[in-house]
């Protein structure tokens, strides 16, 4: 039978509770038929710590931008659970392609957050080694990285590290992107390629409801996770403010990918609590009401409630994390100011792996020019 879908749920964006949730905003554990999870107290504490420290990175970076130490900063406030849940579900060998906002994922992957600051300060364009952390460089051109992730996943297939059954070897790749990015041709082409080759890639979309000033409704009139079905692979929506659910859903999708089951689209339904970046002014386009409503769904608070209610963590734990956060803050404040400016000549030497005579000459000419000033002083 031909299908003539009268698509579109009641409201644009769909029923917001139409998602996988394992921990309510009130900190109550709930069950889900497809995603069971029995997290150890240790894992829960780990989530709490990750999210708290990640938020601290964000707060410090925002302050550093205000003080003129960064040119700009893309805040993740509100998206901690989506990022930490997604990142903690990774196996060490998995590889991640981030946007410019995945500070939480970077944290979990062991990237010194100072290195994130370097990019936003303008000292470099990402100074961590992707191969060391299995965490790619931030990508600013919206959606481009989803294809890179898909290609990398095709590489894993060719490396023979998909579906071997060896959990130490089987590898999945993650493509992060936003709700706005879902409109880009590149993202949809990534879906086509991933589906066509059954590449081991998980498309992780943080639907934070906004693409700068444009609400999600401009990009899609139906829940984004449905997009995957039209390309022939599963899509699932998860409460992106619920670190447990995000972790569980991501774990399953990664496993599926590693086993050779092909791609999955995860829509982590969350909210951008801050501005798009520090140069943005959201009061021009959105109501404070919404923000207030989402405050009640804070991703960290609900884990704290869970930890305390179950006696999984005591005051000392929380104090220790706080202390750690303060230490991290100091590290960032001091480290940021100390970040070296890029050398004016170094750039010439890394345009090509094999330098050209032309560019070497341009470098020398500029070196001479700079030297002429030194002589003049």
């Amino acid at each position, binding site marked *: 039978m031909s299908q003539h879908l009268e698509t579109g749920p009641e409201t644009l964006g769909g029923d917001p509770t139409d998602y996988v949730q394992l921990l309510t905003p009130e900190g109550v554990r709930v069950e889900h038929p497809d995603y069971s999870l029995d997290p150890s107290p240790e894992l829960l504490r780990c989530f709490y710590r990750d999210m708290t420290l990640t938020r601290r990175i964000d707060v410090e970076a925002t302050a550093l931008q205000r003080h003129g130490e960064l*040119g*700009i900063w893309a805040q993740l406030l509100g998206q901690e659970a989506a990022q930490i849940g997604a990142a903690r579900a990774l196996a060490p060998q998995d590889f991640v392609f981030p946007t*410019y906002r995945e500070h939480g994922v970077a944290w979990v992957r062991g990237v010194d957050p100072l290195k994130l600051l370097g*990019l*936003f*300060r*303008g*000292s*470099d*364009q990402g100074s961590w080694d992707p191969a060391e952390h299995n965490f790619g460089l931030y990508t*600013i*051109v*919206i959606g481009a990285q989803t294809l890179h992730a898909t290609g990398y996943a095709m590489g894993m297939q060719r490396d023979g590290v998909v579906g071997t059954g060896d959990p130490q070897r089987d590898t999945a790749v993650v493509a992060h992107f936003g709700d*706005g*990015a879902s*409109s*880009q*041709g*590149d993202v949809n082409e990534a879906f086509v390629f991933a589906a066509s080759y059954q590449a081991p890639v998980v498309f992780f979309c943080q639907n934070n409801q906004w*693409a*700068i*000033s*444009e609400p999600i409704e*401009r*990009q899609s009139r139906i829940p984004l996770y449905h997009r995957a079905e039209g390309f022939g692979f599963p899509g699932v929506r998860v409460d992106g403010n619920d670190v447990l659910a995000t972790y569980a859903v991501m774990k399953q999708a990664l496993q599926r990918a590693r086993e050779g089951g092909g791609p999955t689209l995860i829509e982590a339904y969350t909210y951008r609590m801050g501005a798009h970046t520090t*140069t*943005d002014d959201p009061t*021009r*386009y959105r109501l404070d009401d919404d923000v207030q409503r989402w405050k009640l769904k804070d991703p960290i608070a609900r884990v704290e409630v869970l930890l305390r209610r179950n006696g999984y963590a005591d005051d000392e734990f929380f104090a220790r994390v706080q202390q750690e956060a303060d230490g991290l803050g100091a590290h960032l404040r001091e480290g940021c100011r100390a970040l070296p*400016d*890029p050398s*004016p000549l170094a*750039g*010439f030497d890394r*345009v090509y792996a094999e330098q050209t005579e*032309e*560019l070497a000459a*341009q470098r020398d000419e*500029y070196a001479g*020019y700079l030297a002429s*000033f030194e002589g003049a002083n």
Partner: protein
Amino acid sequence: MATTTKMTLAKALNAGLRRAMEDDPKVLLMGEDIGRLGGVFRITDGLQKDFGEDRVIDTPLAESGILGTAVGLALAGYRPVVEIQFDGFVYPAYDQIVSQVAKMHYRSGGRAAMPVVVRIPFGGGIGAVEHHSESPEAQFAHTPGLKVVACSNPVDAYWMIQQAIASPDPVIFLEPKRLYHSAKADIDPEATPPPLWSSQVVRRGSDLTLLCYGPMVSTCLRAAEAAAGEGRSIEVVDLRTLSPLDLGPVTDSVRRTGRAVVAHEAHVNLGMGAEVAARITQECFYSLEAPVLRVGGFDTPYPPARMEEHFLPDLDRVLEAVDRVMEY
């Protein structure tokens, strides 16, 4: 508004867009965040409020989609003015621009009009992260069927955007983003502007001709001023139109001065300077006392912000090139 008003370049563009929309109900604005937000640079501030969502269209986040639908709207008789949020984000739309927008009039045997304006805030100097400081003009100027212009000051911005919108041909309209909110200028809405397709001598001089456009015009004017202090008389020409070039004033000038330097932020290799130098040499061969030299961005990707002051040609680098040419 019949009286002269002081405006920044950003405000002048806003006023120019507003007037174009008032003059012609077929003019539409399209782009990301241009509605409620007024664009990330506020160039379209207030326009959606006054002209409605049907004429100031916030689009999905897809540049090829924006240009492709603009083509359709133009075929339906509209005059879409597209905002590309930053220079580096025009490339996803490159195919629609060079293969569709640019060729439609030609391939239709002259039947179809393609009055699409693509506004691109271009150039560096604002301390931004990558892809926010590109100078893509040469890539468009190389494409027949497109016209390419760059404004350099509020008065030109005000008039040129209206002239570009009125043009029956597609225009790549380059806006020097680092000058958006700098010096104001008096804009008289009753004045008669120079033609869009004209370059303008913006400073007279006799020793050397300095050619520039967009953000480099103010740099070059300052360089000329500094050179004057050392007894050197530099003529500065604001090219304004990059394709077609209006080389009349340029060759007139070079025939008098015998020397020329072209300055732009774009990479030197195959930048506008190459074409300008080649043409000047061709037209003024016997007048030239020295080769036309070029100053521009290095042939490296645009660097991290804390290196951009090196990358961007500044007063000193322009003067150094002037010196080299004078020494011939």
